[in-house]
């Protein structure tokens, strides 16, 4: 009798541990698939960003080129007041050039947490292009449906301290492996931002969301709508683009 109870307990614990290990593996696999869809060696895209302020809404269009996780150049195309302004990211540094003042200004420190052009995105949000698997460990916390799609809800916990959001929740399309919703939390558990992702399309053998709605939960306003109007992955970008000389 005693032996059978012991055996049953052992089998139960082993089962629980193996189930946990399986879920952890599953979460890591899902995150890898998400990275595969969203990350690329090179990327060129044009986008429009509509900022719904409390009083007015305005749209800014831009063209961005990124290489890996560490280099990016964005040029603002319209409206006229912003046209010609460029932002360059090199490693962890960010420069902005504006033709109106003919100055290149480096943005650093706490300024990186400020909003970009009154939007719900911060410079930090725009700069952090690292793969999720590099930064977070994941666990599956639920399975659900969102906007009619089957989703897996992952909780991501940052492995290092150099991240803007120590904890994230991500509702991932269970078939396309693209996040349909993201919630970013502070260490205290306060919800800081929410992103809803729409219009997932098949582009160059990957799934990619073409429209994102950002909400800074600490701000009043109607959120920021970010729409990718055209995108090309893994195309050749000349070396000189990612240098300070290209700002002027």
């Amino acid at each position: 009798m005693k032996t059978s109870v012991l055996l049953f307990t052992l089998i139960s614990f082993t089962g629980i541990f193996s189930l946990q290990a399986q879920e952890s593996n599953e979460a890591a696999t899902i995150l890898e698939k998400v990275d595969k869809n969203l990350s690329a060696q090179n990327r060129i895209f044009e986008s429009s960003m509509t900022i719904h302020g409390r009083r007015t809404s305005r749209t800014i269009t831009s063209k961005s080129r990124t290489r890996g996780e560490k280099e990016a150049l964005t040029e603002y195309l319209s409206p006229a007041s912003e046209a010609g302004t460029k932002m360059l990211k090199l490693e962890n540094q960010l420069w902005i050039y504006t033709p109106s003042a003919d100055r290149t200004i480096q943005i650093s420190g706490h300024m990186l947490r400020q909003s970009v052009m009154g939007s719900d995105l911060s410079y930090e949000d725009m700069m952090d292009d690292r793969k999720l698997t590099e930064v977070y460990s994941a666990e599956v916390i639920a399975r659900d449906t969102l906007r009619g799609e089957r989703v897996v809800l992952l909780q991501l916990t940052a492995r290092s301290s150099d991240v803007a959001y120590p904890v994230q929740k991500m509702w991932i399309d269970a078939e396309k492996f693209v996040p349909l919703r993201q919630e970013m939390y502070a260490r205290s558990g306060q919800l800081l931002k929410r992103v809803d992702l729409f219009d997932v399309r098949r582009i160059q053998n990957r799934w990619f969301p073409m429209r994102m709605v950002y909400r800074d939960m600490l701000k009043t306003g109607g959120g920021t709508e970010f729409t990718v109007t055209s995108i090309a992955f893994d195309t050749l970008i000349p070396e000189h683009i990612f240098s300070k000389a290209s700002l002027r």
Partner: protein
Amino acid sequence: MKRFLLKGILKDKGRSLLPVIVVSLGAMLTVFLYSWVKGVMGDSIEMSSNFDTGDVKVVTKAYSLQEGQYPNDLALLDVEQLLKKLKAEFPDMDWAPRIRFGALADFPDSLGETRAQGPVAGWAVDLLSKDSGEPERFNLPAAIVRGRMPEKRGEVLLAENLATRFDAGAGDTFTLFGTTMEGGFTFVNYTVSGTIRFGTTGLDRGAILMDLQDARAAFGMEDAAGEILGFLPVFHYDDRMAQEVVSRFDTLLESENSLLDQDPEYSPVMLTLGRQAGMAEMLVYAEAISGMLIFLFVLAMSIVLWNAGLLGGLRRYTEFGVRIALGEDKGHIYRSLLWEALMIGSIGSVVGTFVGVALVYIFHNIGFNFSALLQNASILMPGIVRPAITPAIYYIGFIPGVVSMLLGNALAGRGIYKRQTSRLFNELEV
């Protein structure tokens, strides 16, 4: 009797001079210290009014809820029209549109690259108009440490501490990087015309002052302003007067629909200084502290003068005894003592109040300069403090001067009724 007593007081200086001097000194000190306490408290509130709150302030409803963040996206629009109405409705008041902002100041090296940068808290006020009262409100000519006042567009004043930290001075240029009213980027180059020090850490840490038109151009705020400050035509803030202005403004808004925004959130509202963040508590605190100090001082002076009256009365016991012996009615002696006290108290109070008021006027014009002591203060305190001129200075000295003198003598005079002629003869060794 009264004329006889007055003659006695005026001619018998040995009896009246000392009490009159004591009462005069007491009344004078009371007047001056009352005025001083009111002045210190009033000047602190006045400084907040000049720099931050105005005596009244017009903002949008939405702006008023987030005022500490300078939300210029919620600023007032059609400001010229609103100003015209305000000036017509309240011609005695001074109205000043302002823009408060937070931005990043970036100082370039010789190659135009970022050499130093830091956040700044800015005031955009009318610096260049000839009839503007703003430079005086900020006490700018006296606050300039290096350089000069801005004389043309594109010139700004920078806090001396900030300039030292960035190794910048008059003539240097920098780029201000901020956000427009609509949320866009703004990068504008400015020249430092001079550096300023207000004497309070809070302001000197990162203040920048520029002309209103420069800020309007930089932040895309043509014919807009974050706030319009209104200043009452009195030296120190008067809450009742400010509340009257607010209720008249509310009536004006009801009759002038053109001043209202389609969205009530962006319609103008007027707030008194006392209704702005932290100021209600400050007003209550200032009232309580000044009231307590004045009460304690008047009480102390009253005790001193009461004691003087008491001693004066007691000194004259022998005289009262002789007068009783000569057949004078005790009630008549007591009444004459009180009349004398009233006359001495009144003469002393008039003289003391006159001298006190004269001193108040003199020091109100000169002021006491405490700037050196306030260099590390983190709250808004004026560097130069002046005694306040209020209606109360003309009567406050009479409280200890007349009332206490009268009370002291009344108390001392009670002895008249206990006076025995036989004891008097004993005292006089007859």
